[in-house]
């Protein structure tokens, strides 16, 4: 395999097998699957909806859901990398072909990429902010005492200290959350956990 645009790392071995499985799909089936994928790419928090649509696709086309999920994970590697690197539709097409997808299907996917590019570009801008690793999290509670803002008297807030690794450097980030924000944060993280589990 030649140099890929979407990643500098070697791809998982399973990927070429998954591309061959995709080549077995009819043009219609591939088009339907691509539609489901792009709906997810455009609204990446809609994990439950995505998984439901995958499950429906599997049932309708008499494919097992487990292998389908693995195939989908392999496909998604490309858009993930493409968003981080701001790739063009031609580069996306070239990468899929390099991975073993048929020219026809690779071109179709790339065409959808182009059509959806305004939203995808916006997502790409959000992604090009540097991504850091979370190393540790500490916290403290604080209580606001009397201040000139009456409604703040006696309210508890949370001070989080996030230890982040930026490249090779460690940095501490301090952030304050109100209690409602904390409960919302907890709820969202539980949603994330469910989402990650359904992808495994």
């Amino acid at each position: 395999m030649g140099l890929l645009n979407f990643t500098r790392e070697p791809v998982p071995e399973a990927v070429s097998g998954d591309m061959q499985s995709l080549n077995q799909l009819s043009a219609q089936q591939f088009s339907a699957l691509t539609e489901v994928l792009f709906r997810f790419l455009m609204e990446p928090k809609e994990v439950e909806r995505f998984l439901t649509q995958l499950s429906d696709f599997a049932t309708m086309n008499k494919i097992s859901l487990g292998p389908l999920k693995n195939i989908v994970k392999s496909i998604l590697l490309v858009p993930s990398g493409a968003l981080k690197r701001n790739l063009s539709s031609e580069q996306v097409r070239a990468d899929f072909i390099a991975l073993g997808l048929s020219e026809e299907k690779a071109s179709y996917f790339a065409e959808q990429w182009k059509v959806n590019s305004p939203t995808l570009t916006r997502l790409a801008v959000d992604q090009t902010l540097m991504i850091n690793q979370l190393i540790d999290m500490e916290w403290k509670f604080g209580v606001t005492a009397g201040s000139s803002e009456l409604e703040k008297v006696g309210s508890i807030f949370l001070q989080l200290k996030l230890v982040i690794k930026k490249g090779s450097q460690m940095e501490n980030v301090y952030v304050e959350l109100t209690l409602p924000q904390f409960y919302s944060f907890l709820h969202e993280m539980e949603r994330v956990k469910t989402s990650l589990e359904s992808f495994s």
Partner: protein
Amino acid sequence: PAALNASRFAPCQAPSRDAVRQLCQECFSSPPARLGPLAQRICPGLAAGPGEAQQLVSALHNLTRHVVYRGLTRAEDILSLFPENFHQNLKNLLTKIILENISAWRNEAQASQISLPRLVDLDWRVDIKTSSDSISRMAVPTCLLQFKIQEDAALCGNSPVVSALTVELSKETLDTMLEGLGRIRDQLSAVANK
């Protein structure tokens, strides 16, 4: 980062090191509203006009608070906040003073009501990437979590800066984080039930 203008420091007479140390401390501790009176008080000692003293005091206030809230701990990170043409000895002295005071100032910030940066928004998405710590590489789901954080309004003048911090969480990191968040929730329930 706080914009430092070298010219804010130039017109002032070089006071003693102890005076500089004391000034940094006072500028850090002072709430923004008290910076005016502080500037007026130090004018004679610096042989500076009131406008210059005000600028100096604001600059030191912003600089010291910025260092504390960002959790900067290394000399290089503090030195890099100064503009290129800044007076070398003064830059080194200020950096030294700041480093000496950082943990005391952080405790002061947390103990008092100086507000830390605040969370304004939280967003996330699932990302699929190649996991490179297993023997056979696999496509695994991770979470990209983005915090939108607003700096202390007092630090930024009238236009608070909102910065975005994106972290990647593996399933394991997420589980650990959820454990921590669960403990926080339990502590809150314990307080509520007292």
